[in-house]
C-alpha cells in the first residue's frame, strides 16, 4: 500500500498541492484526472521522487519514506512510465530496459549480452511483447515502445521487496484503438504484480480501466469515486467546477457549407510512395474530417496539400487552379494554412513573441521593401488577442512560455489573420484541457462561418463526428467510406470504426 498524507507543495510561491491525501492499495488501478494546471503532474512527480514535497508524509506499507530522486523511488518499487517516452532510440530494447542497472550482467567488466537478452525476454513476456530484445528501439512502433517502457518499470519487481506502484502518464495519447485495448489488457493482467496510477485526458478510458478515480482541481482532491458506474459528465463537472456545455462541439452552430464554392480539389492523387488514389473536394465553410487509425495515411494527405510532399500522380487544384510547384511557400501564398500536430516543432517559434509568430507567414503584408511595420504587427496581435481571448501579459510575451491552449490560439490566429481560406488542422486539441478545447471548437465554427474550408484530423472520433460536415474514413491510405455529418443525423462511433479496422 502506498499513501500520501496531507502533502503540500509550493513552486515559486504558487501553492500547487494543498493538503493532498492519496492512497493506493495493492493491485489497485487508480485513475487521476484534472484539468491542465490542477496539479496532476506535480503530484505524480512527488510520488516518483522527481520533486520533493514541502510538508506531509509518504508512506509505503505504513512506513514513512522520503524520495530524494526517482532512483530512490525506484528502490522502493515506485516507477514511472513517461508520457514523453524516456527510451533512448538508438539503443537496443534490452539496453533500455536495464539502463543504469546493468550490474547483474557484468562479469569482469564486460556485459554478458546473452544473459541480458534472456532477462529482457522475461520482462517483455510480462507485457506480452514478442520482439527480439536486441532490436534497436527506434524501429519499434509507439505502442511497442510504450510496452517496453512498461516492461522496463516492471523489471523493478526483481530488485525490490513488496509490490510495485507504476505511474502511467497519458499512455494512450499516441496509440490507436487496438493498441489501447492491448495496453489495457496488459495492465489488467499485471494487477497481481503491481498497482497502477493512471493519468489521462480521456475520461472514458479512465472509467473503463480504473477501480477508483481521484479528481484533482486547483491542487485539492475534490472527489474520490468508485469507477464502476461513474458518470463522465459528472466527473467533468467536478474537474471544471461548472457544467460542461451539453453542446460540447457546438453542433448548434454548425451551418451548411456552400456547395458551389470549391476551394480545394484532389483529383485521383497518388500520395508519394503510397500507391493510392485519393479524390476529395473541400467547399467553403466545410469541415472535412479524415478519420482512421494511427498510420492509416491521414497525415501524408495533409502534408501533400500543404506542399511538403509532391504527389506521384494526379492533380491538386486550389480554387480551380492546378498546382505545379509543391512547396509550403507556394501553398501559403495561395491561402493554405497548416496547424501541425507537433505544436512545439512546427507550430510555435518559442523565443519569438506573439506578434512575431502571428505575422511569420504574412510578413509581406507588414513590411515595405523589407522593412517591418512593427506598429501594424502589434495592432494585429492585440486585435487577435482580444478576439480569441488569448491569455498573455502583452503581445511581447514569449510564445514558448504560453500554455498549450494559448499557443494553439496563436497558431490559429496566425493563419486566420493571414487570410488563409483552407486550413489544415492536425490534432488541434491534442494535450489541451477542456476549457481550451472548447475555445478551439468555437474557433473552428467561427472560421467555418467565415467561409473557410477546414480539413481536420481529430484527436478523438467523437471530436471528428461532432465538428465535421463530412467524414472520410481512411484505411491503408485509401478513402474507404464517406459519411455526411449533418447535425442531429451524425453517424455513430460504431459506424466509423467498422470501416477503420
Amino acid at each position, binding site marked *: 500500500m502506498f499513501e500520501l498524507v496531507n502533502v503540500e507543495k509550493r513552486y*515559486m*510561491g504558487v501553492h500547487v498541492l494543498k493538503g493532498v491525501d492519496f492512497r493506493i492499495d495493492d493491485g489497485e488501478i487508480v485513475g487521476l484526472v484534472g484539468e491542465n494546471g490542477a496539479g496532476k503532474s506535480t503530484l505524480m512527480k512527488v510520488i516518483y521522487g522527481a520533486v520533493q514535497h514541502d510538508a506531509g508524509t509518504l508512506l509505503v506499507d505504513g512506513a514513512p519514506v522520503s524520495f530524494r530522486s526517482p532512483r530512490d523511488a525506484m528502490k522502493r518499487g515506485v516507477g514511472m512510465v513517461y508520457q514523453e517516452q524516456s527510451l533512448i532510440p538508438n539503443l537496443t530494447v534490452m539496453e533500455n530496459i536495464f539502463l543504469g542497472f546493468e550490474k547483474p550482467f557484468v562479469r569482469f567488466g564486460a556485459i554478458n549480452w546473452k544473459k541480458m537478452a534472456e532477462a529482457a525476454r522475461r520482462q517483455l513476456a510480462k507485457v506480452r511483447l514478442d520482439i527480439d530484445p536486441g532490436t534497436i528501439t527506434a524501429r519499434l512502433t509507439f505502442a511497442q515502445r510504450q510496452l517496453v517502457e512498461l516492461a522496463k518499470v516492471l523489471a523493478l519487481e526483481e530488485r525490490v521487496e513488496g509490490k510495485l506502484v507504476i505511474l502511467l502518464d497519458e499512455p494512450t495519447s499516441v496509440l490507436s484503438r487496438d493498441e489501447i485495448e492491448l495496453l489495457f489488457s496488459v495492465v489488467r493482467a499485471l494487477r497481481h504484480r503491481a498497482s497502477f496510477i493512471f493519468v489521462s485526458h480521456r475520461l472514458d478510458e479512465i472509467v473503463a480501466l480504473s477501480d477508483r478515480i481521484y479528481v484533482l482541481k486547483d491542487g485539492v482532491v475534490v472527489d474520490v469515486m468508485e469507477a464502476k458506474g461513474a458518470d463522465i459528465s459528472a466527473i467533468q463537472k467536478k474537474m471544471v467546477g461548472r457544467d460542461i456545455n451539453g453542446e460540447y462541439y457546438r453542433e448548434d452552430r454548425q451551418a451548411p457549407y456552400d456547395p458551389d464554392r470549391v476551394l480545394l480539389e484532389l483529383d485521383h492523387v497518388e500520395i508519394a510512395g503510397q500507391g493510392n488514389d485519393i479524390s476529395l473536394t473541400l467547399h467553403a465553410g466545410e469541415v472535412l474530417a479524415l478519420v482512421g487509425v494511427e498510420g492509416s495515411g491521414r497525415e501524408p494527405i495533409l502534408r501533400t496539400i500543404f506542399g*511538403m510532399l509532391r504527389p506521384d500522380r494526379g492533380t491538386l487544384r486550389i480554387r480551380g487552379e492546378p498546382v505545379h510547384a509543391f512547396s509550403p511557400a507556394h501553398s*501559403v501564398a495561395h491561402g493554405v494554412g497548416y496547424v501541425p500536430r507537433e505544436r512545439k516543432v*512546427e507550430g510555435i517559434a*518559442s*523565443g519569438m513573441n506573439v506578434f512575431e509568430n502571428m505575422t511569420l507567414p504574412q510578413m509581406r503584408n507588414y513590411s515595405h521593401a523589407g522593412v517591418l511595420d*512593427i506598429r501594424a504587427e502589434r495592432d494585429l496581435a492585440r486585435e487577435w488577442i482580444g478576439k480569441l481571448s488569448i491569455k498573455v501579459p502583452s503581445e511581447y510575451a514569449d510564445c514558448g512560455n504560453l500554455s498549450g491552449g494559448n499557443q494553439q490560439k496563436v497558431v490559429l490566429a496566425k493563419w486566420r489573420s493571414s487570410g488563409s481560406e483552407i486550413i489544415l488542422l492536425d490534432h488541434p486539441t491534442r494535450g489541451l484541457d477542456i476549457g481550451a478545447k472548447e475555445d478551439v471548437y468555437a474557433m473552428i465554427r467561427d472560421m467555418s462561418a467565415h467561409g473557410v474550408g477546414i480539413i481536420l484530423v481529430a484527436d478523438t472520433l467523437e471530436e471528428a463526428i461532432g465538428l465535421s460536415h463530412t467524414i472520410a474514413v481512411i484505411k491503408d491510405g485509401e478513402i474507404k467510406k464517406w459519411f455526411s455529418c449533418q447535425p442531429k443525423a451524425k453517424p455513430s462511433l460504431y459506424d466509423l470504426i467498422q470501416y477503420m479496422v
Partner: protein
Amino acid sequence: MNRFLATDALRKWVPLLVLVGLCLFFTALNPNFLSLRNFARIAISSSPALMVAIGVTFVILMGSIDLSMEGTVAVCAVVFALILNALGGTIAGRGWVALPAALLVGAALGAINGIVHVKLRIPSFMASLSLGFVGIGLSLLITGGDRILIDDPPFRSLLTVRVEGFPLMAYAALACLLVAWFIQDHTTVGRNFYAVGGGEDLARASGLNVGRLRIIGFVLAGVFYALGAIFAVARLGIAETETGRNFMFMSITSVVVGGTALRGGEGGVWNTLVGVLIVNVIGNGMVVIGLADYFQDGVLGLLVIAAVYLSTDRRSLSFVK
C-alpha cells in the same frame, strides 16, 4: 512562477553585469583602467572584432555556424588594399572604389559559403571551415605572402582623428552596429533569421524559403566580415593574410559570451556588442594590471568559461553537446 520570470529577466542582463564587474575589477587593481584614453584603446581593438562578430551573429541566430571569417577577412583586406593602391592610393580620390569593392568581395564569398552549405547540403560547420581555408589560400596567392601597406591619411583618419576622445573608427563601428540592429529588428530578413533559428520546421511550415534565407544570412555575414577587414586595415595600416588571424576565436567567443545561443533563435547584435567588449576588456585589462604573460591565455579561457556559465540559460538544456 514569479521568481522564474525574475531570474529570466535578470539573466538577460548578466553579460552586461559581467562587463561592468570586469571593469570594476580591473579598475580596483589599476585605476588607470578607468580612463577615457583607455576606453578609446579598447574601442580601437574592439571595432574590427565587433564587425566580424556581428556578421557571425546573424548566422548563429539561424542556428548555423560560420567559421570562414579568417579567410574572408584576409581576402577582403588584401583586395581592398590592392584596389586602393592601384587607384591612386587614397580614398579621397578614385581609391574610394576599394570600399564597395571589398564589401562586394565579402558578399560574394558569403554567397559561395551559403550556396555550398545549402545547395550541396554540407553542414555549415564543414562548409565554412573549408571555405575559410580556401580564403586564406586565396589571399596568400594574391599577396605571395607579402604585406601591403596602406598609408593614406584620409583613410587612416579612422584611427588618427578623434572626436570626444574616441577615434572615428569607433563611431563608424557604432553606425554599422545600428544598421545591423535595424536589419535584425526591423526587416523581414532579420525576423526570419530568428524564425529559422527558433525552429526550422516551423519556418518551413510557415511558408518561408529557408534555403534562400540561409544564403542571405551568409551573404550578410560576408559583408560584415568585409567591414571588419576594412577596420582592421585602418587600425594597423597593413593588409596581409595574417590580418584575418584570431578572428574566429575572438568572434565566436564574443557571440557566446554575449548570451546569443549557439542553437539559434536567441540573442542578437546588442548581446554581441557586450560580448566583444567583455573579450577586449579582458585582453586589455590583463596587460593593464600586469598579469604575467604566460597566465594570460589561460586566464582568458577561464574567464570566457565563467562568462558563458553565467550568461547562458542551461536550465533548458538537458544535454550539452
